[in-house]
């Protein structure tokens, strides 16, 4: 099976083939590796990469992966080739659009912008409080505030849409 990993602007193609019980032949960037992979504890994998032993914590939601190894966090998107092709199509015309979502459950303390207002990349747009800490969320793009989905004082879930910049 072929997969495409995207990290920043770089893409890596990975091929996975099962060659035994929990053993895989993995090809990445031309190199072949025999990998012995066991999911030993929840999201923790014990990996023998050749004979090198790693403990790998794989957390993925949808196509976004966050992988922890020795305290380093590797973030990338990963999907199979066909899926990747679809996404490319879907992305058309969506450039410069950014939905600001709440990264944790909390309470909206303050809206720092109004609908229609121009914002710059990394400009603070909203303040969300969780566990008595106020966190200012920033816009990822430059554009105009298209829509605001929440009110001040509103309690929001993790991942809740807060506002849309276009």
């Amino acid at each position, binding site marked *: 099976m072929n997969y495409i990993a995207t990290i920043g602007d770089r893409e890596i193609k990975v091929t996975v083939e099962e060659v035994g019980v929990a053993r*895989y032949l993995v090809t990445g960037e031309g190199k072949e590796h025999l990998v012995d992979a066991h999911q030993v504890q929840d999201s923790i994998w014990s990996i023998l990469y050749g004979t090198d032993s790693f403990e790998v914590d794989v957390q993925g939601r949808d196509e976004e992966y966050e992988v922890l190894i020795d305290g380093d966090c590797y973030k990338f998107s990963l999907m199979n080739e066909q899926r990747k092709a679809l996404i490319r199509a879907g992305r058309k015309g969506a450039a410069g659009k950014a939905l600001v979502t709440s990264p944790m459950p909390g309470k909206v303390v303050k809206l720092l912008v109004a609908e229609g207002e121009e914002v710059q990349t990394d400009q603070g747009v909203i303040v969300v409080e969780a566990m008595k800490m106020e966190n200012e969320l920033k816009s990822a793009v430059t554009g105009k505030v298209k829509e605001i989905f929440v009110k001040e004082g509103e309690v929001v879930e993790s991942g809740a849409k807060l506002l849309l910049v276009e």
Partner: protein
Amino acid sequence: MFRKILIANRGEIAVRVERACQEMGIRTVAVYSEVDRHALHVRCADEAYLIGPPPAGESYLVIDKIIDAARKSGAEAIHPGYGFLAENPTFAERCEKEGIKLIGPSAHAMRTMGSKTLARKTVRAAGVPVVPGTVEPIATEEEVFRVAGEIGFPVMLKATAGGGGKGLRLVRGEEDLRSSLRMAKSEAKSAFSDDSIYIEKYIENPRHVEIQILGDRHGNYVHLGERECSIQRRHQKVIEESPSVVITPQVRAAMGKVAIDAGRAANYEGVGTVEFLVDKEINFYFLEMNTRLQVEHPVTEMVTGVDIVKEQIRIAAGEKLSLRQEDVKQTGHAIECRVYAEDPDRNFMPCPGLITSLRTPGGPGVRDDSGVFEGFEIPIYYDPIISKLVVWGKDRQEAVVRMKRALGEYIVTGVKTTIPFHIRVMNNQHFLEGNFDTNFIDKVFFQEERERELPHFHVAVITAAIQLFLDERKQAIARRPVGAGEPASLWKYSSRPGMPKFR
């Protein structure tokens, strides 16, 4: 000695106090809110009383409910832990009125040291060096501008009732003064329901070093040496160690004496911590005194062999200190890493949730003071601390590699934790050299992290690919509409620390 003690707290510190009590043969009484029925401090106590709904304001902070539980259980003393009611003089007075011994200093001592301004006045009178600034809370914006002008920028705005880095704002120039004041006041209001603020000269790149003192009601005082607490983010301690690499025996003795003087000035009884700012020339200035058991007390326990909580309980029971200054010896080196349910790769956003699996580190020189277990759900209502990982080594070098080793063994899944952050700090050259100040994390560390190349990118991708391969084979997963992947993929992606670079 007390026969029964109520612990008016939750989480790791409640468990820590229960452990001391159990080893002293004292019966423990836990209190818990509705979300804490399963919590470790309830499971490990001898008795437990429900004190109300999840918000601390309706449970752990309600004096009447704590007192009621103490009366019902027949507890002779209350240990407040840290936070919640630990430094609340009203609570101290109420306990006195009810004839229940509060394990801590008098209401008077709390008031004196609890108000930063009064504290500065008091200790200055006792000959303790302090940082230039106001000693009174500041009433008006105009006054803030005037005083800032006098002592000169940069200045610190501080909540009079502050602590834990809340209601703190650094202001580098006049232009930011107004907005910072607003934020500081609002944070202070929500955290301490008191928005009074004072202002202080800001010491550039200071270290934060504190002295642990013990005092009994018979006028005996000892100090247990220093803790180096300069590794902070957003002015909140995350890594502490003892001894400090910059403190010589002479400076240690001087700071110890001054700390004890500060304690005496407030007739301090119990265990307390005197915090100092230390500048490049190792001049030290009184910052504040914490009139409670400190989160980071274990590092001192590891190097001195003194069980601070047991001493605290003995002092409260009226006993004399069990040790004199000359009995106190620092042996080896100890480091503590505070493990929080926060995402270090998303600006330490809190990550409450269910702990789906856990592997705690072990082996020589490792101590884990935890408040959780596998299957516990970290509530959103309280500080998201999971545990304090502490190690001892014969010297700093051994302590650091041991901490790194222990952090590597520590597995917590289901919630993001600061464990990866701590591993990266243990690998940082400046940290290894002991070359840092209170700005290290925010100013130096994250910059260097951004530049760092990550070594095992292939293993990461390959493992994820194998998991996806197996997932896909298991079933065709119902997918979200095309394009909906964006929010996550755009969320502050560009400024994530630890991003690998490709050349």
